[in-house]
């Protein structure tokens, strides 16, 4: 297995931004999906569950982004290539 190429120091922050943005997008999309399903199933297709789901997802992504910038990798699974 080839060694993972070390990221150059000036690219560290860019990598973190990549992870944070993608994570936030995924969580927001998940919240949107849950909101849609919940709206359809339980709330007669009203809009607020969708917004609520998006809010939960985005908030979750933001919180994890904070953790990532502070040195941890909370909520993010790094898969070795």
């Amino acid at each position, binding site marked *: 297995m080839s060694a993972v190429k070390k990221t150059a*120091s*000036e690219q*560290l*922050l860019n990598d973190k*931004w990549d992870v*944070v943005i993608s994570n936030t997008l995924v969580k927001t999309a998940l919240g949107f999906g849950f909101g849609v399903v919940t709206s359809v199933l339980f709330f007669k297709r009203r809009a607020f569950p969708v917004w609520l789901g998006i809010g939960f997802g985005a908030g979750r992504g933001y919180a994890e*982004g*904070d953790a990532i*910038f*502070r040195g941890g990798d909370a909520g993010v699974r790094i898969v070795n290539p």
Partner: protein
Amino acid sequence: MLRIMSARVAAQQQQRLVASRLLHSSVARSNVTNVPPTSVPGTPNPTAPMENPTPATPSTPNLSSSASSGTPPPPPLPPPKTTNRFRKFLLSVTVLGAIVYGGGVWFALWNDNFHDFYTEYVPFGEQLVMIIEEREFQRRFPNAGRKPLEDDAKRVTVQRGGATWKMVGDEYKGPSTGPHVSAVAKDKNVPKTETKKDVPPPPAPVPAPPVPEPKKQEPLVIRETVLPKLPKFVFDGTTDPSLENVVKSINGLFTALTTSGAAGPEELSALAASLGEVSNKFVALVAKYETELKENLDQQALVFALQNEKREQDYKQQLATVDEKWREGYFEERRRIMDTYKKRLIAELKKFNQVYSGRLRNEVAAANAEKDKLFADKVVETVENERNSRLSKLKDLKLAFEEVMALSADVDKQLETAERTAELQLALGSLTNALQAPYSVPLAPIVARIKEVGGDDPLISAAVAAVPVAAYDGVLTPAQLAARFKLLVPEIRKVSLVPADAGVAGFVGSWLFSKLLWKKEGKPKGTDVESVLARAESALVEGQVDEAVREVNSLDGWRKKLAEDWLAEGRKRTEVEFLARVLGEEGKVWQYKY
């Protein structure tokens, strides 16, 4: 049991009877239904299978005829078959048992292992085998255990042997007969056999004629004493009581005849005279026999004497032979012993000779060694004397030569040092060239060369050891560092306002607000990020890499973290430059030193 069996057989017979009746009736019915068999040729006949068994029975035509008559008479019953199963069973069991037991007994007598198995596990097997064995034993030894011993004399008496508590000659003198000694009753009527037997006399070479046993030794003398009235017959000197009795009876007869008057004294005298003649003849006969006997005895004595002499001669001859043999043996043995001792003596003499000659040789060798040693000492002494006197000047020559050699070595060393200095200068020049080259040059061979030339110089060794291993592949040139710094600066500027432990908002804010910051140039004062960056950039433009590194190193937080790689490269270049300067100074020192 038998009753139950017979009852069962009777029941079976009855069932068979009923079954045969049913069968016959069904056959009859089928025959009735099959009268017009051609009426429906196409349809299959359901009773056709029933027809098959009927032709097998010979009574079918009768049955069909009777069936056609309407009243089926009872068929003639087959005689009840007696199977005799029980009898066969009994017979077979008996035969099998006999075979098994007989074979088992025979094999048990033949094989010991099977004997053990048979007697142990087969019921009654042990008794059977014992009976057979007992009979066999009786057949072989019919009188075993009953026959008494036939003869007392044939018994073997075991002598008492070994140590005993008794004193010598203190044998038991008690009764030697009785039930405690022998269980066999002693027959009192049997005359005691003679225990002591004389040695049988040697057989007479000449069979002697049967000699009548002489009744008495003295010759009979008849003395007739004629009494005035009565003649009396007298046997003089007889000791034989029978003869005395005869004489007495004759005299008594004479007396009786005389007293009865049947015979007169003359007749009696004549009778006495004839009796005297007869007695004289008898005496003469006895004397004759005695003489013959004596002759025979003399002859036998002569024969015995001859034999005795012959035996004596034989004995002497045998004695002489044995004596000769012993003498020969004695001489033979003496000669053998003498030979043995002679051989031993020779061997010992030889050994002693060897030992003695060996000792002599050793002594001679020791004397030789002593002589050689003395000779060697003398030679050494002579040589030493010569050396001290004539060859002492050689020592001076040697000293002078050693001085010249030291001088030569010194010169060589000087030359070598000068050469090494020149090589060091060359290597240092190549190092400086490599650092000033417009591209990255590998430093490993140059460093190795410097180390080799430097040898034991501690400063050079320490400087070479201090070169970072990462720099062996080369260091970045100042131009390369400046280009890389230009790439680094916008990244650092993005995070210039990030507080410590910032989150997403902090980074976004820093990015946004850093756009509003006033960019500085030249060498402004201040510790803010823009000032530091401006100073570093100007230092790089001037070619002062160490200054730029120092400035960038003063950053903190995410700024320094982003600049880590550039810092490492810059430090590497700075270190190598510094070490190159140190080595150059040392090279100058070398030039002045030698």
